[in-house]
C-alpha cells in the first residue's frame, strides 16, 4: 500500500505532477458542485475508457483502486437509508427511510465517488514525490523550504517500514515484546513516532550542514517542465467535466449542491 516511491516509467508517469493535480482540480470542481447521476455517470464512462492509457497496467490498477470500488457502494447505501426522503416511500423503519428520492441520491452519490476518486488514484499512482516537489516549487512557486522539508518527510515513509521492523527486533531483544497485541502495537506506534521525530531533528541538522535555508536564491538541478503535453492533460480534465455538466443540464438533472434542495 505504501509503494508510492516505486513509479513504473510510462508516458503518463513522465507528465508533470502539477499538471496531474490541475487536471484533477479541473475535473473535480464541476463534478462536486452537482449531485446527479447523469453528470457523474457520463464522467465515469469517459474516464473508464481512458484508464487503459494511463500506463498503470491492470494489476496495479486494481491494487490501487479496489478500496474505491468497495467504498463507493457503501457510501451509496448510507444515503439510500438515511438520505433526504422524497417521492414514494418504499420502506420505513426507525430512522431509516428508503424513498424514491433517497435512492436517486444514493445512485448519484455512488457514481460521483467513483468519478471523482478513480481518476485521481490513477493519475497520482504515477507521481514521483521528488518530481512533485520540483513541480510545486518551480511551476506553482510554493516556498522551497516547505516543499523540500515536506519531501524529506515523505521520504521517511520508506524508512518507516524498516524502522518498524528494527523496533520489533529491539523490543524483542530487550525482553519487552511479550505483551498483548494491542498494547504492543500502540507501544510500537508511539516508539516509531518518537524515532521519526528524532530522525527529523537530525536530518534538519544535516540539511543545514549542506546549506539548506541559506540566504540567497536557490537553484533547481532538475527542471520541472510544463509544456504542451501538460496543458493537454489539464484540458482533458476540463473537457470531461464540461461534457458531463452539459449532459446533466441538457437532461435536466443538474442539481446544484448549494442551491435550494
Amino acid at each position, binding site marked *: *500500500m*505504501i509503494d*508510492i516511491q516505486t513509479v513504473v516509467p510510462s508516458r503518463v508517469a513522465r507528465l508533470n505532477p502539477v499538471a496531474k493535480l490541475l487536471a*484533477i*482540480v479541473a475535473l473535480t*470542481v464541476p463534478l462536486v458542485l452537482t*449531485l446527479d447521476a447523469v453528470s457523474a455517470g457520463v464522467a465515469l464512462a469517459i474516464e473508464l475508457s481512458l484508464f487503459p492509457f494511463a500506463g498503470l497496467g491492470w494489476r496495479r490498477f486494481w491494487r*490501487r483502486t479496489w*478500496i*474505491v470500488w468497495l*467504498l*463507493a457502494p*457503501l457510501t451509496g447505501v*448510507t444515503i439510500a*437509508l*438515511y*438520505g*433526504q*426522503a422524497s417521492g414514494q416511500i418504499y420502506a420505513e423503519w*426507525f*430512522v*431509516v427511510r428508503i424513498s424514491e428520492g433517497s435512492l436517486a441520491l444514493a445512485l448519484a*452519490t455512488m457514481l460521483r*465517488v467513483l468519478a*471523482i*476518486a478513480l481518476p*485521481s*488514484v490513477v493519475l*497520482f*499512482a504515477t*507521481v514521483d*514525490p521528488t518530481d*512533485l516537489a520540483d513541480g510545486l516549487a518551480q511551476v506553482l512557486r510554493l516556498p522551497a*523550504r*516547505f516543499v523540500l*522539508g*515536506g*519531501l*524529506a*518527510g*515523505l521520504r*521517511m*515513509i520508506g524508512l*518507516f517500514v524498516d524502522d518498524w521492523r528494527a523496533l520489533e527486533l529491539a523490543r524483542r531483544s530487550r525482553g519487552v515484546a511479550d505483551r498483548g497485541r494491542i498494547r504492543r502495537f500502540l507501544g510500537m506506534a*508511539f516508539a516509531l513516532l*518518537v524515532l*521519526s*521525530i*528524532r*530522525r*527529523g*531533528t537530525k*536530518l*534538519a*541538522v544535516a*540539511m*543545514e550542514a549542506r546549506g539548506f*535555508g541559506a540566504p540567497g536564491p536557490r537553484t533547481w538541478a532538475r527542471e520541472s517542465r510544463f509544456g504542451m503535453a501538460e496543458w493537454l492533460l489539464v484540458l482533458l480534465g476540463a473537457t470531461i467535466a464540461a461534457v458531463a455538466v452539459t449532459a446533466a443540464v441538457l437532461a435536466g438533472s443538474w442539481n446544484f*449542491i*448549494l442551491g435550494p434542495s
Partner: protein
Amino acid sequence: MSVSSSTPTTVTNRFRWRIVDIVVASVIGVASGLIFLAWNVGYVGPSTLLEPLLPGLQGLLDGPWLFAGVLGALVIRKPGAAIYTELLAAVVSALVGNQWGGFLTLEAGFVQGLGAEIIFLIFAYRVWTLPVAILAGAGAALAGGINNLILWYAGADVTFTIVYLISTVISGAVIAGLLSWLLVRALAATGALDAFPAGREVRQRV
C-alpha cells in the same frame, strides 16, 4: 580580525520557521498521513455500526482525520503549523489514493487545518494549554464538518446535519484535541521534543 564582544545571537523571530520546525512538522504530517490511510479503510466497519443507531453519529469517527493539525501546532508552535501538517497528511492520503479523490482530500486537509489554526491564532500563538487544544480540535472538526456536509452529505436532512455536526465536534475535541495534547506530553517526556518549546518546558538539566 574577528573581535567580538559577546555571544552573537541573532534575534530569533518567534514566528519564523526554523529548518528543524519544517522537517519535524513534515515528519509529523507524514506519520499522521499513514494513520489517515489506515483509518480511510478502518472507519468503514464502525461507521456501518454507528449509522443505524442515529444517522450522523458517524461524525464521532472523524477525529483520526483531524488530529494532525492540532498535533503539529502543539509541537511546532508557529503560525501555519496546523494547516501545514494537516495538509501534508492529506497529501500522503491523496498520493496513495482514497475514496474522496486527490483534490478534495487536499481541500479537506486545508479546511480542517484552517479550523484548528484559527483557534491558535485567536490566542495569538501564545497559549498551548489543554483547553486551547480541545478548542482547536473542535475548530478543526467544525470546519471539516461543514465542508463534508456541503460536499459529501449534500442530500442530508436537518436531523442528520445537527447530529453529525455535534458528533464530529465531540470527536474533534476528544481525539484531535485531548489526545493530541496527551501525545505531545508523552513525546516531550521522551526527550524527542528537546528542540522545541514543548519539550524544553519539561526538561531538567542533568
